[in-house]
């Protein structure tokens, strides 16, 4: 159910190194949780995601990062497509980003809005669910 759209130019490789830049990184010394704050930019291959705050969630058994939880005007860009939302959960191993909170997806001159969108970087597809609205711009030039 929901609208299936293509997202991102190429099939992303989830094993590429992930680079994160931000103003500050705060590591709690009791439970070890790490939070990036202040124009955080996550980059991996073609994908760029920016947000105000990104929480790192670790894999309990295998170690390493299980997912990055971005909140605060999240913008995801991959190839020609861009998506905005209030929150995004990016699980690195599977390359799946779940965006929630009035999602706006712009592809070229078309725009789609919905409550939630699941982007799969490895297959280059996005699935929008919840009050999906599409705004198609008629091409004046042809």
């Amino acid at each position, binding site marked *: 159910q929901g609208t299936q759209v293509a997202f991102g130019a190429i099939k992303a490789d989830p094993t*590429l190194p992930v*680079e*994160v830049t931000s*103003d*500050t*990184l*705060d590591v709690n*010394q009791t439970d070890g949780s790490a939070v990036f704050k202040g124009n955080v930019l996550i980059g991996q291959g073609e994908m760029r995601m920016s947000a105000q705050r990104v929480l*790192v969630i670790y894999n309990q058994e295998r170690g*390493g990062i299980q997912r990055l939880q971005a909140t605060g005007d999240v913008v995801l860009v991959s190839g020609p497509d861009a998506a905005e939302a209030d929150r995004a959960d990016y699980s690195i191993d599977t390359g799946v980003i779940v965006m929630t909170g009035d999602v706006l997806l712009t592809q070229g001159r078309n725009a789609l809005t919905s409550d939630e969108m699941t982007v799969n970087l490895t297959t280059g597809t996005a699935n929008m669910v919840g009050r999906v609205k599409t705004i198609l711009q008629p091409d004046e030039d042809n």
Partner: protein
Amino acid sequence: MDRYSRTVAFLKVLLPLLALAILATVFLLSRTDGPNANIPFAEGDITERVRDQRITRPFFSGVTDKGEEITVDADAARPGTADRPGGADNIRATIKMTGGTSILLESDSGAIDPTGDVVMLTGDVRITSSTGLHVQTEALNAALSGVRADTPGRVTGTGPMGRFTAGRMEIGAKSDEEDVHMLFKDGVNLIYEPQKLKDN
């Protein structure tokens, strides 16, 4: 008196004397390390020690009112003079937090100023936290009366979230009730390699 009894008589005198002589030398030939045995110090060491006072293996520890234990120890410490501040070599400072986690600060040299409530670590400062963070920097100032530390310069480090560099680092808690945080400031750049985890 025939020859035999003369020799016996002579031996009766000679042998006790010999015994007496042997007995006397027993105490003379005893081992040489008497009470004033010399302490094994190199010559240079002695002149150096005479020139400036030194404390070997100094140890300083305290408990903050929140219950965090701070212990500072070093290989050697020299008290400050008018022109030269007090210094210490191979400093190790361990902060044990109430939650059971701990932070270890090590450096090649530094200075401890208990009255100014600060220990200044300089020269290849290494910070290791029990949450898996290993941070290196050039200098770090840590408070002795509480868990507060900061680095004036850049830090590089590795942790469960990857390799990172940052402009500065601060260790501390915003208020007494809160947990202690390691805050990396002035621009953070981190690289996380998922690939490495898949191999092992």
